[in-house]
């Protein structure tokens, strides 16, 4: 890919903005490029990044999923409380949570693909339903983490120490999961025909059906996958925090969707990719985590999140508008009126 084409991409601008912002924070505080700050950032972007992977795929297929925090919370809470102490191995917890998530995703997928309702309203509805089941029927509250997940949760990849302040930060093993997930998602989206089907369905549903893609099946798959991923991520979250905190993921959907769009994933579907989603999440995390280093009160963090969403989406919306308005007549060089 040549450089000119690269500079046309949203990903390129986001990368530049991230770099500029990091430098700004470094200049202002001198604390940005320190081992423990970097590790802290990587740690806090682990979970949002994983969610972003699922949301990106849903968005590219032309849908949107607002229910993944609810799916993640419910499946995580279910396995951590109902299967507490049943296994020493963390694997069954993950598998059952993914299965539960898959079923909940299937509900979303079926309603969206079958009735063609706006995915946002459907998933807002199922989100309320799933959270209600967790808070109402299961009566969720803080709960100690089951031993099977505890050892996984305390496994560290590395520990960074800040030479000046002596503060240490650990990078949990989940960061590796996140990296693997990103790679798998990249492979799925770019190297398999299923990935192409997701892009095709998001780009032009009718053309996709005519080309022989299974539109209903693709939509179902995407929501099921998003659900299963949410189940997995839910368990990751609780094991990372070393406690079962059921309400801790609620509200994340908005930041995650915003991060995807910021990274150039289109809300209308068909456009964007994993690189953009990753960069978008990175930008959101870095900005909200660096406000303290810039001397801004944490009270302002929501305002900044809002501004990033508005400015970021405005930029891509303007690009989209220009793309739609673009005309494609090749005009010949010389006038030639006869007759």
């Amino acid at each position, binding site marked *: 890919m040549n450089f000119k084409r690269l500079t046309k991409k949203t990903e390129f601008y986001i990368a530049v903005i991230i770099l500029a912002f990091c430098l700004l924070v470094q200049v202002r505080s001198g604390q940005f490029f320190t081992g423990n700050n970097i590790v802290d950032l990587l740690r806090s972007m682990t979970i949002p990044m994983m969610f972003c992977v699922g949301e990106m795929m849903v968005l590219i297929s032309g849908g949107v999923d607002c229910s993944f925090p609810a799916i993640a919370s419910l499946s995580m809470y279910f396995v951590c409380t109902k299967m507490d102490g049943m296994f020493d191995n963390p694997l069954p917890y993950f598998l059952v949570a993914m299965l539960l998530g898959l079923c909940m995703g299937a509900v979303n997928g079926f309603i969206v693909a079958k009735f063609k309702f706006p995915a946002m309203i459907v998933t807002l509805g199922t989100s309320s339903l799933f959270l209600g089941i967790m808070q109402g029927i299961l009566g969720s509250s803080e709960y100690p983490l089951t031993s099977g997940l505890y050892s996984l949760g305390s496994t560290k990849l590395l520990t960074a120490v800040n030479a000046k302040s002596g503060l240490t930060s650990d990078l949990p093993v989940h960061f590796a999961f996140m990296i693997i997930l990103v790679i798998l998602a990249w492979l799925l989206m770019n190297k398999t025909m299923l*990935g192409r089907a997701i892009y095709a369905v998001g780009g032009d549903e009718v053309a996709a059906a005519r080309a022989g893609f299974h539109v209903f099946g693709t939509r179902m798959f995407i929501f099921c996958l998003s659900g299963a991923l949410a189940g997995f991520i839910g368990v990751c979250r609780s094991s990372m925090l070393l406690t079962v905190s059921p309400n801790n993921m609620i509200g994340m959907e908005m930041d995650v969707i915003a991060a995807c769009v910021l990274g150039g994933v289109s809300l209308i579907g068909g456009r964007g990719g994993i690189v953009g989603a990753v960069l978008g999440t990175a930008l959101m995390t870095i900005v909200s985590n660096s406000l303290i280093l810039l001397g801004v009160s944490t009270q302002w963090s929501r305002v900044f999140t809002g501004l990033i969403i508005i400015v970021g989406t405005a930029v891509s919306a303007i690009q989209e508008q220009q793309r739609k308005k673009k005309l494609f007549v090749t005009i010949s060089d010389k006038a030639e009126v006869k007759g």
Partner: protein
Amino acid sequence: MSENIIKITGVKKYFGGVKALDGVDLVIKKGEVHCLAGENGCGKSTIINVISGFYTPDAGTIEIDGKEYSKLTTQMAIDAGVQVIYQDLSVFPNLTVRENLALNMEVASGKKFVSKKRFQEIALEAISKINFKADLDEMVENLTVADKQLIAISRALLNNAKLIIMDEPTTAITQKEVKNLFRVIRDLQKQGIAILFVSHKLDEVFEIAEHFTIFRSGKNVFSGRTEELDEQKFTYYMTGREIQEEAFRYEKRPDAKTVLEVRDLSLANGFADCSFSLKEGEILGITGLLGSGRTELAETIFGYHKADSGEILIHGKKVEIGSVKDGIANGIGYVPPERNVQGLFMEQSIADNISITRWKDHADRLGFVNEKSIEDSVAHWVKELSIKINDPQDNMKTLSGGNAQKCVLAKWLSLDLKVLILNGPTVGVDIGAKYDIYKLTKKLAENGLAVIIISDDIREVLSNCNRVLVMRQGRLAEERMTSELDEASLSALSVE
């Protein structure tokens, strides 16, 4: 093994209450170039979507290569060797040229993984067939209509097809590219591949087709060899009328004022240096290939685009038209080409669709609408244009193409217009309504309205306009009186 690649018997298809296909038959032999003809709205596109498995027919049988299919899906049709070049092209705007060319074939062969090497090979093979030069890494959304059409064509030629259906494949491409396509078609024919060719360009179909099937209003009216047809018979079968509709005769009145004048109008990537004028009572045709800038020119006069330079004069006075509102304020009405998307609100009532441009006039100073006066006005226009409806409160969706188009016209005619621009006025319109629209247009012109008809239907332009402009590559290339032209000469001018 059957000698027919496809045999369709008694197929019916309804949309709501509209009969798109009313028991049609179609038989295509192997290795035959077969032309399916018929006027706009006769059911051509519907039968194509039935053969490709995209629509499920309400009655009738489909037999492909001797095998009968009770429920044909798109995948089954592709597997049976049916390839379609759709009129709307069905390309993926968000994917690269390479992917667009290779995807369909890879799906058909059941591949699970993407291989850039294989994609590249397929894509190169595809574009080599019709000598189409393209940047394989470019996104399809950045291409011209002509290039998109070439992609759709080369993509269909690739697969191991037994039947290739081409629905208006030449609307955007130049004569040279059409020649290339015909060469390929003859090659394919030699390999025993059948082609179903759908086009309203007479010279093209007579050149390439051996066998004809003609539809009218969703029914078969003719099936036989090309030799059995001459132009007169062909016209009769198409229109169901012995005599051609009498051509529009423009009575040049000495006192006729120039209504619209366009001077050196230009729009980047749209058109350049367009100048022409239009007198009251005239019907001016504008023709040219898709992507020649004809729609952009019309939409700029209407105010949908803002011109980069040049002047528009109404009754000799320079006017600023920067928005559709300005266009309407200056008495310009525009019937857009994509009726269902640009012209109508399919989910709203017929009454609302007709009256939308006049609501403010039916409201008091506070903005409260006088329902009664709207109802009266709607009833008036429904009667005036003989629109067939049950209840003005019915959904727009319930109307056929012809009646729907009349609703778009009613919306404009209820305003006090000076210029009416019709872009593809009879696409997807049944015959009865089509002639109603022609008659109405002529009547409007006689009453002093200045009319512009944009169309690639040569016959439509010749019989309804007194003067025609031909656009090529964003410029006005020819200006002729229709009385000096016949179908062949005008057709040749537009694809030059």
